[in-house]
């Protein structure tokens, strides 16, 4: 427990220290923070509930579009937009959760893919509002809290994204440590037994689904606000897969998986795609096969194993 506290503090300190450590890469930092938030929201489903979905881009995209449209048509206030994005994604999560959570395994995956395709098609066809295939343009955010204008160095954008992520992490942390979070793990391990124990399994999963969707929507809203643009491929099957890969790379259900996985993925993508853009998919595919056969559990499991070995040697 004490180690967990210390590591939680370390994560937050890392977020705060990033602008000092890498003042030139604040854009990259904001992008990473957004993707960490998105992967973390997926972790609630994949890691804690044991629900494998390929539909998270639907919620990310819904949040991005809602926040973007809100900024263009209603108010350019960032925080209000964040709430709108989260609420839109939560609503989508509520509606789709009712249908999706009746199924498991392959059917759940199929339905989650279908959700992405429905949102994507809606964004594509409703071009008058969403900008269609050209993406949503014309977003111009007003200063954060009425004070801090988004600047070219990306400083405000990073602080904004990192602070949102920090709050989301504190919430995520108390959620997974709570009895509610423990019951989700129980459902993951043995759904029938939790049923028999009297846990309202359906309601718990639907709640987790809505929370996860809302967090992904907040990530999407951040992305729309920071880049002042929403591309149609924010809602794509490929992006859904990428979110899952980031999470798995870090380790699902391991509290810090998203914090490790998303930055490593972004680094790899930047590096490998720059060196060899055509074969990016080959590398990412081989990496997945390597994770499955060599390191199930991802990077955090590897780090934890090393830590255990060091501790074992000491005692």
């Amino acid at each position, binding site marked *: 427990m004490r180690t967990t506290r210390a590591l939680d503090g370390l994560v937050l300190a890392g977020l705060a220290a990033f602008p000092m450590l890498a003042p030139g890469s604040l854009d990259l930092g904001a992008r990473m923070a957004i993707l960490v938030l998105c992967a973390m929201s997926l972790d609630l489903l*994949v890691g804690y509930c044991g629900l*494998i979905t*390929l539909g998270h881009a639907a919620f990310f995209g819904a949040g991005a579009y809602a926040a973007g449209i809100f900024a263009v048509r209603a108010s350019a206030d960032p925080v209000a937009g964040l709430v709108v994005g989260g609420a839109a994604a939560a609503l989508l999560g509520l509606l789709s959760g*009712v*249908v999706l959570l*009746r*199924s498991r*395994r*392959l*059917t759940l*995956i*199929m*339905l989650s*893919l*279908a959700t992405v*395709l*429905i949102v994507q*098609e*809606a964004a594509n*066809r409703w071009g008058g509002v969403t900008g269609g295939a050209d993406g949503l343009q014309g977003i111009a955010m007003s200063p954060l809290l009425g004070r801090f204008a988004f600047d070219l160095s990306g400083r405000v954008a990073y602080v904004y994204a990192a602070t949102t992520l920090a709050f989301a992490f504190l919430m995520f942390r108390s959620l997974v440590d709570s009895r509610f979070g423990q019951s989700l793990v129980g459902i993951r391990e043995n759904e029938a037994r939790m049923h028999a124990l009297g846990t309202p399994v359906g309601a718990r999963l639907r709640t987790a689904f809505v929370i996860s969707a809302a967090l992904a929507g907040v990530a999407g809203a951040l992305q729309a606000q920071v880049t002042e643009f929403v591309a149609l491929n924010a809602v794509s*099957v*490929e992006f859904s*897969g990428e979110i*899952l*890969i980031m999470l*798995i790379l870090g380790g*699902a259900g391991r509290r810090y998986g998203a914090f490790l996985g998303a930055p490593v993925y972004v680094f790899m993508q930047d590096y490998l795609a720059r060196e060899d853009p*055509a*074969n*990016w*998919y*080959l590398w*990412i*595919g*081989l*990496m*997945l*096969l390597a*994770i*499955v*056969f060599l390191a*199930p559990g991802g990077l955090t499991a590897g780090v934890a194993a090393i830590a255990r070995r060091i501790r074992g040697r000491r005692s």
Partner: protein
Amino acid sequence: MEGAAPVADLLITLAFYGIAYGAVLYLLSVGLSVTLGLMRFVNLAHGVFAMAGGYVTVAAMSRAGFPFVPAVLAAAVLVGAFGMLLERALYRRLYAAPILEQVLFSIGLIFVSMAIARYAFGPLAQPIELPAWLSARVNIGIGVFPAYRIFLIGVGALVSLAVWAGVERTRFGASIRAAVDNRRMAESVGINVSRLFTWSFGLGCALAALGGGLGAGLLPIHPGYPNEYLVYVLIVVAVAGLGNIRGALYAALAFGVADTTIRYFLPDLGRVVVLLLVMAVLFRHPHGLAPKTDA
């Protein structure tokens, strides 16, 4: 589909095109249904074998001068053998693994195959040159239709009959049914389930390759193929009920007809409506219309 045709003609035409599309979908998905029912393996990469079948067909025709039908048959045999090899080397190790690892493995396989396809054939869709006897239009009594679609329906009917006979009337099929229903029991009465897995996996891959090759005129072969048609294959398998081989035929035909019809009448919203319809069906029947297993 000419605009001024009377309603009956239009409906016949839509049904016809839908059934041709459904026949291809059936070939693409029946193998996955078997894999799920038998091995409980969530193989999202099943479309990779269809894509491979398509590429082998195209390459055999354009580079080795094979005619269309022999090229497709060669593709089915080759890809089937390749599938058996992969099953022995990789898939087998993950039968007992959590579903997450199976999903990751199949996504990895999809990405690798996409990269290889792009490297070997480039990013563009491969044009397939149908022989003259398939490019004609034929009057079959209820209307004039492209010979290619008639051919697809004919092959679909033949294959589904062969699969039905194979599953219901042969010893091999009886072993598959036994293993789907109760794997442990099947093992303890002396069925070699391990060998059964390899053969049925290979046959499923061969059928997918057949669908990929034959259907290349309908579903163009390109590096994004395994992703693009994944959701349709999964819909067929999930609506049928996992492991329900005969159900896969009905589900594929029903989906083909529904998709074609709805898209014709609602060109803008068709895709959304079809997907919502699928969701509604699975909301009513979360395990599909007639599940054989709980995979």
